[in-house]
């Protein structure tokens, strides 16, 4: 094979592989969330979800609780985590190709028997609803300012949104 052709093929293969690295698990065929949200009397139940995103759709952060990797959170996905009552630190880490660093960190206080919904959100207006966990981010893309954050969402509101999300495959957890 000629050298330029080989270079083009290598470039194509590299881009394909990198896309697979940052995009997170494939949700095709995964079940959608169906209520009711499950709870556990001896633990707290935390649902993490992220409705389909217009910006950063192909990037899936990794969620850690108290330093333990729980799951990645692709656009349109959700997962459930059962944790002990008390205070916990949640880290969201961007994929290695982007930075591989913790880019959002916040604490949550949870109680046994209760269900919590934490959403990874992005929007075009600043959030002032009191639901933000940790510090929100903002950045400009294509002349538009976008705001991103994690939010502790009231159950009623969360159930309206999470029904559009599919469970993240176990292999990604």
């Amino acid at each position: 094979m000629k050298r330029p052709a080989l270079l083009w093929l290598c470039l194509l293969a590299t881009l394909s592989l990198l896309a697979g690295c940052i995009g997170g698990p494939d949700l095709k065929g995964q079940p959608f969330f169906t209520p009711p949200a499950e709870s556990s009397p001896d633990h707290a139940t935390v649902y993490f979800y992220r409705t389909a995103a217009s910006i950063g759709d192909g990037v899936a952060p990794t969620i850690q609780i108290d330093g333990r990797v729980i799951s990645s959170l692709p656009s349109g996905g959700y997962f459930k985590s059962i944790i002990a009552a008390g205070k916990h630190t949640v880290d969201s880490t961007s994929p290695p190709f982007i930075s591989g660093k913790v880019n959002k960190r916040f604490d949550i206080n949870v109680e046994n028997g209760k269900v919590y919904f934490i959403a990874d959100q992005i929007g075009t207006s600043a959030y002032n609803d009191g639901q933000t966990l940790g510090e929100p981010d903002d950045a400009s893309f294509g002349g538009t300012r976008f705001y991103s954050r994690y939010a502790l969402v009231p159950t009623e509101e969360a159930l309206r949104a999470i029904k559009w999300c599919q469970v993240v495959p176990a292999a990604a957890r």
Partner: protein
Amino acid sequence: MLRKASRQLLTWACIALSITLLNGCITSRYDGKRAPDPSKAIIVGSITEGFLTQPHGLVVDIKQHGEPGTHLRLTTLGNEDDQPSPNLLGNLYMYEVPPGDYEVTGWSYVYYAGRSMARAAPVVFTVRAGETAYIGDLRADALRFCLSNVSNAEKTLENLKRKYPILVGRNILDLTPKSAFEPWPSSDATDSGKGLCKL
């Protein structure tokens, strides 16, 4: 040497472009000026977007299951405007397609980054050879960022027959019990307190 390399680059660029174009083979509209092919089906309906200041280019994709996989791309921009209102842009359409199962696979706006959310229940309808089928009125607006497909058969079929005289006298099946769907949000939709798709 540079010239040789450029030629090779051009060849690869042409191959990539050809693959891209073939990949996106989209069925063109049927104008009814020739007799319909009895081995195919005719799909009719309408697509409309509502807007305040300017249209944003509604695009709806309908794909056939299996091979060869006919792909219909319904668009508001770049087509005739059959809507009399100054705040609506849309058209009545007619396509001649191979019989089979078709799915409304997604939708978006040309001038917004959002794309339709994944659906728990796919929208699938079936057309048979020789049939003419009305699949509904697709409608979206850039306030709610949601697309719905509703049955408005009586009025829309009347308008379709006026636009496409070949439909006059034909038995047109109403497939909306299968093809209609409730408002379907895009990733640009936001919850203003009542849920997505509700103001």
